[in-house]
C-alpha cells in the first residue's frame, strides 16, 4: 500500500514554451503547440529554424521526472533505442536531442516531425489511404524482420526490461492480482497460457507496442513506427502476435493484421525479409497473451480512477472495456485465432 500512497500525487511538468525549447535546441523556435498530454506528460509540435533559415519541424515528448511506469523504459533509453533503430534503417523519427535535467522540462527528447496520419481509425478507412493499406502488411513484416535481426548486444547499456516467457507471465499474473479483481475469463486465459507457454529466454529486441495505433501513415504507406516506450528483450513472436490482436483492428476483424492484412502474408513477408521462421502456434499464443495484456492495461486505467491516483471519467469508462477483452479472449479460446 505504501507504494500506492506515494503515487497519489503525480509530479507535474512545466509547460514548454518557444523560449525554453529554443534553449534546449540552441536554435530559434517560432511555434510550440501541445498536441496531447496531461499533468505529468505531454507531446508538443515544435517549429524551429535551421541555421540556413529553413523550417525545422520537430516533436518534443516529455514527462515528469520519475513518472515512468514500473517496467517501462526510461525516456533517455527510449530515445537511444529509437536512434539505434534509425541507424539500422528502420522507419523511425531521428532523435535530435535528449533532455537533460538542466533543461527543466522533465525527462524526454526531441525528434524529427515526420509526415503522416497517426489516427488509425482514419487511415484504415479513408479511400485515399487504400495504397497504404495494401502496402502495410509487407512494410510491417520488413520492419519487424529488421528489428529482430538486431543482436541484443546492440542495446547493451540500455535499461531494457528482460525476462523469459514464464517470468513475464508470472509478472503479468502478479500485476493482475494486485488489482483485487476476480475475473474468471482472465484466470482461465492465464491458466490456458501457462499450459502452453514454453519457457524461452529473451532472444530478441522487441518493440512491445507494435500496432496500428503507433504508426504514422501517408497514402503511400508507413513513414514511422512510434512509441518505443514498451520495448524490451523477449520473444520475436510477441510483436507478430500483438500486431494481430483484435483490439487494434478498429472493427475490421476480417483483416487480423492490424485491420489491414492477413496473417499468411505477414508471416511469409517476415520470413522473406530474414526475420526467421514463424511458428504459427507460437504467434497465436502471443495473440491470446497480447489480448490479456491489453486487459491488464484496462484494469490499470480503471484502477487509476478507483484508487484516486487519477480520477477521470475517461479512466473510469476505459475500465469497462475489460468486457471487450473478455469477449475477445473467449472468442479465441472457443474458436481459435480466426
Amino acid at each position: 500500500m505504501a507504494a500506492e500512497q506515494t503515487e497519489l500525487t503525480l509530479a507535474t511538468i512545466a509547460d514548454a514554451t518557444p523560449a525554453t525549447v529554443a534553449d534546449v535546441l540552441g536554435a530559434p523556435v517560432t511555434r510550440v503547440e501541445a498536441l496531447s498530454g496531461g499533468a505529468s506528460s505531454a507531446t508538443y509540435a515544435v517549429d524551429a529554424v535551421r541555421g540556413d533559415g529553413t523550417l525545422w519541424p520537430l516533436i518534443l515528448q516529455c514527462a515528469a521526472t520519475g513518472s515512468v511506469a514500473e517496467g517501462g523504459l526510461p525516456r533517455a533509453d527510449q530515445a537511444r533505442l529509437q536512434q539505434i533503430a534509425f541507424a539500422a534503417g528502420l522507419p523511425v523519427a531521428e532523435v535530435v536531442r535528449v533532455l537533460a535535467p538542466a533543461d527543466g522540462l522533465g525527462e524526454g527528447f526531441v525528434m524529427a516531425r515526420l509526415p503522416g496520419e497517426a489516427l488509425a481509425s482514419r487511415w484504415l478507412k479513408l479511400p485515399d489511404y487504400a495504397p497504404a493499406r495494401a502496402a502495410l502488411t509487407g512494410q510491417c513484416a520488413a520492419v519487424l524482420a529488421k528489428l529482430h535481426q538486431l543482436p541484443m548486444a546492440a542495446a547493451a547499456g540500455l535499461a531494457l526490461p528482460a525476462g523469459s516467457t514464464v517470468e513475464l507471465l508470472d509478472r503479468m499474473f502478479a500485476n493482475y492480482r494486485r488489482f483485487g479483481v476476480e475475473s474468471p475469463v482472465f484466470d482461465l486465459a492465464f491458466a490456458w497460457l501457462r499450459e502452453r507457454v514454453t519457457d524461452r529466454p529473451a532472444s530478441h529486441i522487441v518493440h512491445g507496442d507494435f500496432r496500428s495505433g503507433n504508426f504514422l501513415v501517408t497514402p503511400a504507406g508507413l513513414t514511422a513506427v512510434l512509441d518505443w516506450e514498451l520495448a524490451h528483450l523477449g520473444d520475436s513472436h510477441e510483436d507478430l502476435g500483438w500486431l494481430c490482436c483484435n483490439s487494434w483492428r478498429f472493427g475490421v476483424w476480417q483483416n487480423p493484421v492490424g485491420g489491414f492484412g492477413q496473417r499468411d502474408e505477414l508471416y511469409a513477408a517476415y520470413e522473406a525479409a530474414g526475420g526467421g521462421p514463424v511458428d504459427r502456434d507460437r504467434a497465436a499464443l502471443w495473440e491470446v497473451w497480447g489480448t490479456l495484456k491489453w486487459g491488464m492495461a484496462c484494469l490499470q486505467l480503471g484502477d487509476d480512477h478507483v484508487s484516486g491516483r487519477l480520477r477521470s471519467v475517461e479512466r473510469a469508462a476505459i475500465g469497462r472495456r475489460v468486457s471487450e477483452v473478455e469477449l475477445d479472449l473467449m472468442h479465441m479460446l472457443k474458436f481459435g485465432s480466426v
Partner: protein
Amino acid sequence: MAEQIEAVTLIEAVAGFLADVQGQLSGRQAFHAKVAQNALAIVARELAQAPQATERSLLAGLMGQDGDLDALRAGLCADLRAGTKGAKTDGLIDALLAAALTKCAVDNPRYATFQRLQT
C-alpha cells in the same frame, strides 16, 4: 410505475444536459463530455438488461451451487488458479463466453466481436 422519475428518466435528463453544454466545451472537456454520455448509456443498458443476474445464474450452474455473484466469481477464479477447473471442464467455455457476451452487450454493443457473434 413506482416513481414519477425513474432512474432511467434521470439518466436521460443528465444525458440531455451534457448534450446541451457540449457545444460550449472544447478540447479535453468536450471529449470528456462525450465519454460521460457514453458512460450514462452503459448505466442505462445495465439497468435495463441486468447482466449481473444473468452472469450469476451462469456461474451458479457452472459451480453447481448458489451464491452471490462476487462469491461465485471468487470461487471459480480460485478453482481456475488451482487447476481444478479449466478449459476442458464441461460447459465452462460456453458459460464464460455467454457471460462475456452479456457484459459486452451492456458495455459496448457496437464492439466488433460482439457484432460478429450475433450472426
